């Protein structure tokens, strides 16, 4: 039901051709599209109803993300509606509630400033937040801050005296310099320098030295939704590929008649089925037993990553030369799959988590 509604809206408002236009224009955010999504309750998908949200839950958020993935729709959905909203929901004070309301209405966007090295590793955060009077001073560098160039606010992970602390600060605060990255997927990501940036106790989200209580659920929600987006992306690429196998003729016949290609396409479909199961399970676990959802989430992200990688590789290969051209959309799927693979932990990162949780 939700999937059909989302599909209907996205086919009209955010087809792949719309993404191509944005890419050609160097545009990484469509304010009107995001406003429309907010009006449909997508920005508030994880925001409680008393804060103006639609509170549909994680499984629903995954459905929306998957449909966005199919046509490569660009929006701050994952950063803002999924991750920032989930982080803010862990905190029950008036300020968080107001922030959630502003997310639901589409009036504010967020980016998570977590990564510092080339790989996702929150525990290795080196950026310092030095105690300064009643507040803190943040200094250091963040990288691969998705949606970081345009976001109104940043959730910044930094090291404090006894652990890690999460700060919720406006992106234009004095001492913050944002460098927009020229990403292969033509989406917003930034490197951000923090030079003695002031943060008050008010800016701390959750408790000092206990960032993970707030950040872990947010990251898990983001990982699950990103897995769903990648599953959608795989489905989109797969649909194009099977369509091409049915129409492209060589040696006097449709190439989809060749068993070598049939079996590869069939194998890929099997992988997409396994991936779909892992993602449904992640959504179900996040909604019903979030404390114990780590295995389900890492499984979904790992599986979705490997399947998306296969889907875009087979997509390009089975299209042949045309798949390599910029004029054809398959390349967009391949580049987004690559970025999605890295973001919020790559295959190895999540495979290690699965292994640890399964006892080897």
């Amino acid at each position: 039901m939700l999937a059909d509604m989302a599909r209907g809206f996205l086919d009209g408002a955010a087809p792949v051709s719309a993404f191509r236009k944005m890419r050609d224009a160097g545009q990484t955010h469509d304010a009107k599209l995001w406003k429309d999504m907010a009006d449909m309750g997508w920005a508030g998908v994880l925001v409680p109803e008393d804060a103006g949200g639609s509170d549909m839950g994680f499984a629903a958020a995954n459905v929306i993300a998957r449909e966005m993935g199919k046509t490569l729709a660009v929006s701050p959905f994952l950063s803002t509606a999924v991750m920032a909203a989930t982080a803010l929901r862990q905190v029950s004070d008036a300020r968080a509630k107001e922030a959630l309301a502003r997310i639901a209405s589409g009036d504010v966007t967020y980016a998570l400033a977590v990564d510092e090295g080339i790989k996702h590793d929150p525990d290795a955060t080196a950026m310092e937040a030095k105690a300064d009077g009643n507040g803190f001073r943040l200094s250091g560098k963040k990288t691969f801050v998705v949606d970081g160039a345009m976001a109104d606010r940043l959730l910044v992970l930094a090291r404090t005296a006894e652990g890690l602390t999460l700060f919720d600060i406006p992106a234009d605060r004095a001492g913050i310099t944002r460098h927009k990255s020229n990403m292969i997927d033509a989406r917003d990501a930034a490197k951000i320098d923090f030079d003695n940036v002031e943060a008050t106790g008010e800016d701390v989200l959750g408790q000092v030295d206990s960032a993970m209580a707030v950040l872990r659920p947010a990251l898990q929600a983001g990982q699950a939704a990103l897995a769903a987006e990648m599953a959608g992306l795989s489905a989109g690429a797969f649909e194009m590929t099977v369509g091409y196998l049915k129409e492209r003729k060589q040696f006097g016949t449709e190439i989809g008649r060749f068993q070598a290609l049939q079996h590869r396409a069939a194998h890929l479909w099997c992988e997409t089925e396994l991936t779909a199961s892992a993602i449904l399970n992640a959504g179900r676990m996040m909604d019903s037993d979030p404390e114990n959802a780590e295995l389900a989430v890492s499984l979904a992200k790992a599986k979705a990553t490997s399947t998306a990688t296969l889907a875009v590789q087979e997509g390009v290969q089975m299209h042949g030369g045309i798949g390599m051209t910029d004029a054809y959309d398959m390349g967009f799927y391949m580049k987004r799959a690559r970025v999605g693979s890295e973001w919020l932990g790559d295959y190895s990162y999540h495979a290690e988590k699965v292994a640890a949780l399964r006892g080897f």
Partner: protein
Amino acid sequence: MSAGQTAEDFRADLRAWLEVNCPDEMRGGGAAEGGICWGGRNWFFTSDAQKTWLERCAAKGYTVPTWPEAYGGAGMTRDQEKIFSEEMDRIEARTPLQSFGIWMLGPALLHFGSHEQKLEYLPPIARGEVRWCQGYSEPGAGSDLANVQTHGEDKGDHWLVNGQKIWTSYADQADQIFALVRTDREAPKHLGISFLLIDMEDAGVETRPIKMISGISPFCETFFTDVKVAKDRIVGTPNRGWDVAKYLLTHEREMISGSGALEAGGRALGAVLHDTLDQLDATLRADAMRCEIDALSMGLTLERYKDQAEAGQGAGDASAMLKYMGTELNKKRHELMMSAGGSAALEWDGDVGNRAGDWLRTKANSIEGGTSEVMLSIVSRRVLGLPA
């Protein structure tokens, strides 16, 4: 169990029953081929506990939990069966009875059989009294299964059957065989086949085990020479046996990729790696992690398809996916278990048990019940709609 019982009460009752009734010897391990109880007239119980466990389960309908009570089952819903498996897994209880009657003939009879046939054939299957085998493949009908040549000549009140079947699993120990027999040589190949039930003790039935690379002989050749088969020993309509065969193959595919086996296999791999973790190279461990991710996803997929089936949406042609992915995964897992076992896994019945035999046995998984290649062709043509 009563219809109005809550899931919690159902679970509590079941747990209490299992606690009292599942013998200690029937708990933990025993998933390998040697620990299975197949039943039938020729069955020798490997222990008193195995016999007791079967009898107690059969009395409750637990050998076939979802079959109707009238036919020897417990009439469980899908949700109840899920709880049943969870509670069985919790104490690592062995499956009390496995058989081709449960996996294949039973579902086919439930779907195509008359009430009289169900009453006659299903309860003995549920009690483990009659063991069935499958007569499908022939020397000239492997992947091209509909090419069966075993012939049944219409003699009025019976068919006179002549021909040869191959890969008839455990035919040498079975009491009965369900076989595909050509009863109309003029019709197109899919439309001249009947699904017949034949007693292995009938005059003219002969069977011979085939020794396999695993050292065991789970498969046989079965010969029919002027075997008389009464006209009521047919499932479905004459010459429409292919419909029954296809329906049953769907079950076979789901069975071969079965979630129970996968879950048990996952545990086995985890345990093996855990014991030898400090001796394994990083590459092997990484391969195992990939396998584990696929195995968990496969398990979830089986659950999802079962839920859909319960909701009235059968897997249909997508069962080819379950069979293909499940068996390829199982082969991968056994390759890993062999690697993890190192030289200890190279001896027949050595320190790590019959690991080599189990490994070799898995190589048949992607051949029996339709090869991986046939499964991929089914998916590409019937699911993806690619041209034949």
